[in-house]
């Protein structure tokens, strides 16, 4: 009896409802839920078909990669031969071929040295980062420029391609970050002279386009300096880019500073901390954490803005793509060259934006707890 009852009870227990989404149900729910959604799907799908199929044919099916001159291409599709043959120039610019290992080595050191910064277990990340910022420029400069340790000198006009883009972005990021913090602190300072100087600088720089600043750095700087003193063209561009992004960084950091409640300042002062201790130990660690996504976004903007040095005659990735297009042996291949450069920029910016979204999610998860 009891056994029978238990058996029937077991039979009555339904298996858990598993959500089984069939392809058709998914289609109906996501693409054809109402009549206007169906219409929209068909319209957008047709437009995509019109655009993507020819693009795919051009870029993949009919494309040429083989050969080592323009003659190998039949012009029915893309001629990626150009990119294959000139790949080294896209990456290193006019850097001498037998010296390119130096760039590789320096970038590899940078990549390895940056790994601990992303390890969340590593406790001394800040100290490490400061040390890295102080030491790495020496390593990089020695390897890139040479003239020391038996390395032949490579003048900056020969630097180019993706390598130059990374140099400008790297220097810009490391210089603009501390400068931006100082400017933001200055803007919130109680000393009227310092505050007004910082406000004037930030608003002036943010009010004008980067091109004017780069132009000023390349045309006006020689006027400002005593006769005979001359700066490297790359150096001038670096100063321009760093000052420009420092102003934007300052506004991002200021946003974080404003979000710190007054009680934090008062508690720090009550503990007897001085201004720099209070700022460094209490305020900044909290403020910067809040604005990490904004900081990364400024970095992305800076990375894209490095392409503007093309206008003052430096050959970064975009400049190199432009230069290669004008080569008489490869005329008429502008699309291939620019698409490759665009892809190069896109990879870096997209990776950074994904990282910023990841940090944002992690931070907001912390807030929820």
């Amino acid at each position, binding site marked *: 009896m009891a056994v029978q009852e238990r058996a029937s009870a077991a039979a009555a227990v339904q298996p858990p409802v598993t959500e089984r989404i069939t392809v058709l149900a998914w289609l109906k729910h*996501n*693409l054809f*839920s109402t009549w206007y*959604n169906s219409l*929209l*799907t068909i319209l*957008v*799908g047709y437009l*995509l078909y019109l655009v993507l199929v020819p693009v795919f044919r051009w870029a993949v099916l009919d494309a040429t990669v083989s050969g080592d001159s323009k003659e190998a291409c039949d012009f029915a599709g893309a001629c990626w031969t150009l990119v294959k043959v000139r790949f080294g120039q896209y990456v290193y610019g006019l850097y001498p071929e037998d010296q390119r290992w130096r760039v590789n080595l320096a970038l590899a050191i940078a990549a390895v040295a940056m790994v601990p910064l992303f390890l969340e277990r590593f406790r001394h990340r800040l100290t490490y980062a400061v040390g890295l910022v102080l030491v790495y420029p020496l390593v990089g400069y020695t390897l890139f420029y040479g003239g020391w340790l038996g390395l032949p000198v490579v003048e900056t006009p020969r630097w180019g391609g993706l390598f130059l883009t990374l140099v400008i972005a790297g220097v810009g990021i490391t210089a603009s970050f501390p400068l931006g913090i100082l400017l933001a602190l200055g803007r919130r300072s*109680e*000393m*009227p*002279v*310092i505050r007004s*100087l910082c406000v004037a600088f930030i608003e*002036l720089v*943010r*009010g*004008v*386009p*980067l*091109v*004017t600043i780069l*132009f*000023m750095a390349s*045309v*006006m700087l*020689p*006027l*400002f*300096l*005593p*006769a005979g003193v001359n700066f490297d063209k790359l150096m001038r561009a670096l100063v321009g880019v760093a000052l420009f992004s420092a102003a934007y960084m300052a506004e991002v950091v200021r946003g974080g500073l404003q979000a710190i409640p007054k009680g934090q300042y008062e508690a720090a002062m009550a503990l007897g901390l001085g201004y720099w201790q209070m700022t460094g130990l209490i305020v900044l660690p909290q403020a910067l954490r809040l604005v990490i996504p904004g900081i990364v976004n400024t970095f*992305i903007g800076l990375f*894209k*803005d490095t*392409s*503007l040095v*093309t*206008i003052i005659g430096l050959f970064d990735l*975009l400049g190199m*793509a*432009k230069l290669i*297009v004008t080569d008489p042996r490869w005329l008429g291949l*502008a*699309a291939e060259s*620019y*698409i490759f*450069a*665009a892809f190069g*920029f*896109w990879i870096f*910016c*997209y990776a950074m*934006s994904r990282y910023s979204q990841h940090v944002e999610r992690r931070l907001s998860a912390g807030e929820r707890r």
Partner: protein
Amino acid sequence: MAAAGPRPAGRSRTVFWNDPRVRALFAQAVVLLLVIAGAAYLISNTIANRERLGVASGFDFLWQVAGFDISQTLIDYDRTYSYGRAFLVGLINTFYVAVVGIVFATIIGFIMGVARLSSNWLVAKVASAYVEIMRNIPLLLQLIVWYFVVLGGLPAPRESIALGEGVYLNIRGLFLPKPVFGEGTAIFLAAVVLAVIAVLVLRRWARRRFEATGQPFPVFWTSLAILVLLPLLGYVLAGMPITFEYPKLGKFRISGGLVMLPEFMAMVAGLSIYTGAFIAEIVRAGILAIQKGQWEAAYALGLSRGQTLRLIVIPQALRVIIPPQTSQYLNLTKNSSLGVAIAYPDFFNVAGTINNQTGQAVEVIAITMAVYLSLSLGISAFMNWYNARMALVER
């Protein structure tokens, strides 16, 4: 007795160099001195360098003959006009491309921002692909591609693509019929002005009546009717004063008509598609910021979907959208200076030419910076005013 103590009241106990107020004054004095000394050093160098190079100083050059042509002039200009006039032409070109770019960027951004939130999977994916691709590629690269690859690939004038009656597209640009304003245009314009005034009056009246009696009035459709019918009536009464001059297709060139230069089209396409991607994200965030309860409350009050959107959701979303939107408009205006890379004669480009001809870099840069600063301040002032109108009115 106590008053004659060794420490008078109000005096601090510390030595004067430890007094924060003294320290602050000292620090500021040092910074100020450093800044003044640096500026003086740079200025003296500049003066010496300019004397050495024999460059004139002052703004007298603004009245000298410019002697160079500008490819797009919205006001009268040729090479016999002055440098000052050339600056003005460049400024107007900057305005022109910025305004057209802002309009298109806003339209693209709103459509894409809403599309990213669509329940339609395909539409949402296409919109997010657009955003993720376009905002991660430098604008300068996009402008160069638009100009040299897309528009540079258009056919020669002889093989122009005809896009309809009197509309041709070729490598020289987009050719449109040009309106010619004949006699009686004033009557037509008066009708337009009258229509606008009538709409404004109608809106005020409808609002008053709605607040007094609660009876809504179909303001939108009535306004539309007034705006279309009144000018049309004026146009017919004035004897159809506006005629069109069609561009004529020649062998090597197209004569007559209205021309949109390829530089201009590349600028508008590049600026609006790039900025549109950022605006799309702003719009998406703005709509997502409106809680579901707002929709539900509006439905519970008996509002229709359209009314909910118009009266409840959009006014609140705009509050979130407007401040970041302002900085996008500012960015677009400043980014129009990249026209120098594709030979669009904007302000910065013209300033560069003038600098090359006169060598007066300091004055030219000063004018350039002043102009861009005032443009920025002007746009932010306008958007702040608009933002204040839209802001939450609290009790």
